[in-house]
């Protein structure tokens, strides 16, 4: 991924049962475990239950060279201070990418009226390719991946502009295959450079394509696919299944993103239909459909929480909880808002929040499993 290819110092031999980190995320987790181990060892020493000095020193030297190697090869954070800075850098990279992408798009629209068609075409085709070159250059020069993320997002925005603007210039009938092209582009960069933001862009584009195509297969004009939220359900289910079919050994942080957006792509349409039954394909009364989707919403979000706890998928637990609360509160608004005194309404909302806390606490206790002692 960001490996300088042959210039990194050798990583110390891996302990039995653990391989060498294959990605920055794995390396960061290893570094986090080392730091946690060190903090716990200090606490044990203070309590008089530490390791013998020679052994502690041997382990300490091993960890020192391991951290140095990981930092050199993967640019991981080895202190809390570095972690905080990294979080800031991620936010800055993302905002910077959005701003730069907006700037590129607006610059084109600022000048396209005063340049000839061949020049317009040349600029539009060159822009994403230049963005790719910048992404490659950034990845080679800087191992953290932040600048590569920035360049990759700008390249993606340039490709979206490429296709959209060509469609306007040549008055091409809009087609949903544009989403497929954008998805392919984003996935290629995401998997090639290990960039999660580009994976999200690819997932979003793929969801749009699959949803539009689902609508088109029903015979409808694809551009109106958003008027039928059910079009998004097959895409959501497919995304949830991806990590099961494709094992992401090299990029383990990608699997949670598929699960997260897969679940979101299922729950959000259900939430919409729970309040807008007329948007359903099903030939039933709006009120009946809304009731069906409300029940479905509760069931799915509860199921997501349960499966998330069992499989240790935090993203499903969190998202399932959020949607469960949303479904509950929107139901309360339907039932109580018009007639109940407002102070009492919010009291009930608060009571359900407390109840949810209690339930989640109990579930957390059930999820705890005793660690095996060596």
């Amino acid at each position, binding site marked *: *991924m960001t490996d300088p290819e042959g210039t990194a110092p050798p990583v110390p031999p891996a302990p039995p049962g653990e391989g060498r980190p294959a990605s920055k995320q794995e390396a960061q987790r290893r570094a986090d475990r080392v730091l946690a181990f060190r903090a716990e060892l200090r606490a044990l020493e203070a309590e008089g239950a530490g390791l013998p000095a020679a052994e502690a020193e041997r382990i300490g030297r091993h960890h020192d060279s391991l951290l140095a190697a990981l930092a050199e090869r993967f640019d991981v954070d080895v202190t809390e201070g570095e972690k905080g800075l990294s979080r800031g850098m991620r936010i800055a990279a993302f905002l910077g990418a959005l701003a730069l992408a907006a700037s590129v798009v*607006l610059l084109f*629209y*600022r*000048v*396209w*009226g*005063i*340049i*000839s*068609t061949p020049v317009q075409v040349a600029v539009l*085709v060159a822009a*994403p*390719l230049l963005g*790719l070159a910048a*992404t*490659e250059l950034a*990845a080679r020069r800087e191992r953290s991946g932040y600048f590569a993320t920035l360049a990759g997002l700008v*390249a993606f925005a340039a*490709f979206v502009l*490429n*296709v959209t603007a*060509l*469609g*306007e*210039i*040549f*008055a*091409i*009938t*809009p087609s949903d295959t*544009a989403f497929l*092209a954008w998805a*392919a*582009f984003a996935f*290629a*960069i*995401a*998997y*090639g*450079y290990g960039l999660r933001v580009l994976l999200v862009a690819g997932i979003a584009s793929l969801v749009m394509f699959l949803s539009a195509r689902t*609508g088109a297969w*029903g*015979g*409808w*004009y*694809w551009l*109106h696919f958003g*008027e*039928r939220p059910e079009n998004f359900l097959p895409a959501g289910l497919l995304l949830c299944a991806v990590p099961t079919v494709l094992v992401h050994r*090299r990029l383990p942080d990608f699997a949670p993103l598929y699960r997260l957006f897969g679940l979101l792509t299922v729950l959000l349409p259900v939430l919409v239909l729970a309040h807008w039954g*007329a*948007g359903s394909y099903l*030939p*039933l*009364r709006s009120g009946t459909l809304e009731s069906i989707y409300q029940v479905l919403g509760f069931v799915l979000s509860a199921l997501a929480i349960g499966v998330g706890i069992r499989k240790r998928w935090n993203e499903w637990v969190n998202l399932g909880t959020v949607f469960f609360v949303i479904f509950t509160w929107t139901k309360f608004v339907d039932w109580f808002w018009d007639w109940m005194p407002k102070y009492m309404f919010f009291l009930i909302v608060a009571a359900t929040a407390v109840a949810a806390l209690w339930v989640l606490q109990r579930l957390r206790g059930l999820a705890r499993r005793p660690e095996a002692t060596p």
Partner: protein
Amino acid sequence: MTRRPLWDRRRGLLAAALAVVVTNAAVFAHVGWNRAGGPVARLELTDREIRLPYYNPSSFADDEDTGLALHLDVQESAEAWLDRERLGELGFDVRTDPGAKGAPIRYRNVLPRDVWLVLELDGETLRRHLAGLAEEVEETRRAVAAGEQEQPALEWAEGRLAEARWNGSRLFAVDAGLDRGGLRERYPEPERYAVVPGTARIWLVGKTKDEPAYLTGDVSPTVTRLQVPLRFRREVLRAGRAYSERETVSGGRYPRVFRAEVAFGRLGEPWLESVEALSVEAPASDSQTESDMPDGIDGESGGG
């Protein structure tokens, strides 16, 4: 020996570049295919059918968007040619009787379908449209004379007729179908008809005391926006300025300020072939329908 990963940076870079190249190649192939062999139809339109960018002295071309675009103004005929049978031919499921109990749910918010549309320029549909408006004027005139309606109603009806006759778009959507070749055979004149991609919608009109429930719909072209290439920019800007500053001549008639030839390819997608800003003089006739108007109907208030 270390196994090479299935996907690495080099492959990612190549795949992304390939996506760009293949997509652009597909776009150019599409455009080339549409325009190959020359236009299938060519319509000469004026500022009646093309909405020019509005000229604002302070910022004609938006500072943030220097692109200029022309918009085709396609009229819908008042004739209800989209009935249940035609809608069924366009692919809508119309098996449920409009008067049936479940019809409102069945036909609720039905999504549009893509179809091929026939656009007619300055043809029989326009003639019938104008004749229909002229008949309305006559009926209103009789009603005013009989004291059943007020004079403003007559002025309004006459204004509608004058607007449609002199200034309104002469471009109508007159037919639709799923077979483009069949439509081209039925409407072969390339200077009067263009077959273009469009969409059709369906909805249920509820029962009234005079009429039972029925199905109807409308159609609209998918592409109505034409980006102006650089070589036509000056003419369009001139025309836009003249359009914004034009004043009516007699009878609410505006002079023509713009003429454009719009070509349509084998995929029905349009492009601008030529553009001309006209000098704003006494308006010349731009419609053969002028000579077809019934005597005595000239769109002027109180005229006879």
